[in-house]
């Protein structure tokens, strides 16, 4: 048991560094290693995460997910959509929405979970993992139409996932805070719609303000401080007013990316400092894993994994049919979109803190379990698909 949070941070960073070196040889993604480290250091096992740090994971997850949402907002620009193309954008939207709908409906009607919980689980499942797709395509020199379509989809689909999650969570928190669920359906929906609208407004207003004063930035350090300052402003305003941190940060990023010519520099400056924040974030996510909850939810987790796979395959098929994509995309894109990682875990951690009840823990635990499964098998499936469609020449 370690009480001092700084000592705990030191241990986490050094072990995280060593472990990420080790797993690299085994071709396991670093995120999986960090989550595993979190599980290992959690109160259940080695107990090396200080209680203060564990209690502060709300603080970290707000900042980190705000940063993720802001960065993903960069790709919601006319320039990117022009590059990616209308067809790919269409597939990416359906490949995000259909798994979300499928899981929501089955969890709600078949497994009899509350509607808003099913909705949150569904939205989290729509996220994918661009890192796996990029690494696999690059490592095996995958080239061709399928590869270009896949990379185009994963460049934008986590943005859709975050939007779905932001909307779902807003509805879920309106439901949980209204107490009597049955009487408050309409009121909850109205409340969440207002919150969502206001979240967008905050993002947009801060982006306008941001753009006004960039002339005062003189150095690289200034730029980082300036960017972080405005980002914290958005996160702080929205989280203290209980709006959606994700939607406002993403909108902030999207408006900035569409209006400021040098916006890439601001997004780039965050990349200089994000690595340690992500490390601590994923370790804390892992440290929340609760074996008792997970054993109880084993069946649900297996169902979630299966439904997500079916949803991704169906979603890509529908999307590809609508935009008349090649047969290889119709047949195999869903499988290539199975890897899942950071965004899903981040959303689950946010859901845990926002819902602040046993459902939150339940969502986080089944998400961690399904993410680890998808992270481990995902790269192999992606490679298999790329070989099958002929983009990887063996």
């Amino acid at each position: 048991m370690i009480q001092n949070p700084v000592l705990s941070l030191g241990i986490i960073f050094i072990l995280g560094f060593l472990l990420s070196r080790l797993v690299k040889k085994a071709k396991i993604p670093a995120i999986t290693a960090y989550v595993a480290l979190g599980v290992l250091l959690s109160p259940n096992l080695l107990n090396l995460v200080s209680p203060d740090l564990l209690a502060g994971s709300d603080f970290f997850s707000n900042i980190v997910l705000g940063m993720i949402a802001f960065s993903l907002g960069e790709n919601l620009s006319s320039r990117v959509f022009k590059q990616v193309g209308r067809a790919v954008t269409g597939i990416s939207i359906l490949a995000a929405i259909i798994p979300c709908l499928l899981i929501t409906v089955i969890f709600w009607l078949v497994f009899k979970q509350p509607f808003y919980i099913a909705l949150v689980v569904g939205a989290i499942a729509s996220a994918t993992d661009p890192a796996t797709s990029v690494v696999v395509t690059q490592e095996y020199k995958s080239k061709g139409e399928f590869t270009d379509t896949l990379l185009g989809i994963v460049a934008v689909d986590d943005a859709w996932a975050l939007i779905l999650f932001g909307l779902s969570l807003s509805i879920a928190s309106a439901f949980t805070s209204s107490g009597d669920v049955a009487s408050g359906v309409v009121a909850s929906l109205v409340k969440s719609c207002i919150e969502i609208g206001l979240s967008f407004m905050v993002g947009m207003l801060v982006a306008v303000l941001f753009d006004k004063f960039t002339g005062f930035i003189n150095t690289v350090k200034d730029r980082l401080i300036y960017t972080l300052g405005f980002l914290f402003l958005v996160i702080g305003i929205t989280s203290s007013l209980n709006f959606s941190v994700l939607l406002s940060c993403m909108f902030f990023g999207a408006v900035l990316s569409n209006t400021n010519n040098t916006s890439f520099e601001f997004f780039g400056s965050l990349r200089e400092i994000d690595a340690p924040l992500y490390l601590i974030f994923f370790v804390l996510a892992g440290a929340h894993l609760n074996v008792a909850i997970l054993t109880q939810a084993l069946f649900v987790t297996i169902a979630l994994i299966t439904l997500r796979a079916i949803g991704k395959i169906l979603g890509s098929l529908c999307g590809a049919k609508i935009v008349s994509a090649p047969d290889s995309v119709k047949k195999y894109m869903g499988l290539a979109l199975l890897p899942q990682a950071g965004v899903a875990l981040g959303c689950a951690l946010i859901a845990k803190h926002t819902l602040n009840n046993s459902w939150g823990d339940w969502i986080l635990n089944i998400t961690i379990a399904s993410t680890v499964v998808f992270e481990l098998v995902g790269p192999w499936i992606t490679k298999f698909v790329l070989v099958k469609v002929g983009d990887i020449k063996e």
Partner: protein
Amino acid sequence: MKVKEAMKKDVLMVKRATSLRGLLDMFKDFHTLPLIPVVNKDNILIGVVNSESLLDILRPQQSRLFRNIPFVEVDENVFDLDTSPLMGELIIVDDVMDRNIVSVREDDPLDKAYKQMRLYKKNRLPVVDASGKLLGIIGVFDIIWRMFKEKDIV
């Protein structure tokens, strides 16, 4: 002191239709690729070519999109990137150039140009007029040289 007093007007530039081979030939005697401005027929600056953008063409088409996406870290070996001899003619400057241009105006004070270089981590910046027409290039050494001259060292 103004940018125009320190900038170099004699600039090597390319058109967007210049082939990759033509570009590489043109700069084969350079140790480091200078800032290469790309201009249209009216001499308006439309992009720049740098070493990083040359490597980008060897990467998958969409890889630029992932530059700022969280968690995407790729270690790559530049000797292992995918190439083909046909690329020399098939790829033109328009495919390679970076359209995110940071430039200065000829009437900007020198210290502003210096700050811009520090801020964008560049050693050279294109100099343009109000219409975006390329007038020259200013490098960090041009500024340092002017500064030494001011102090009567040269």
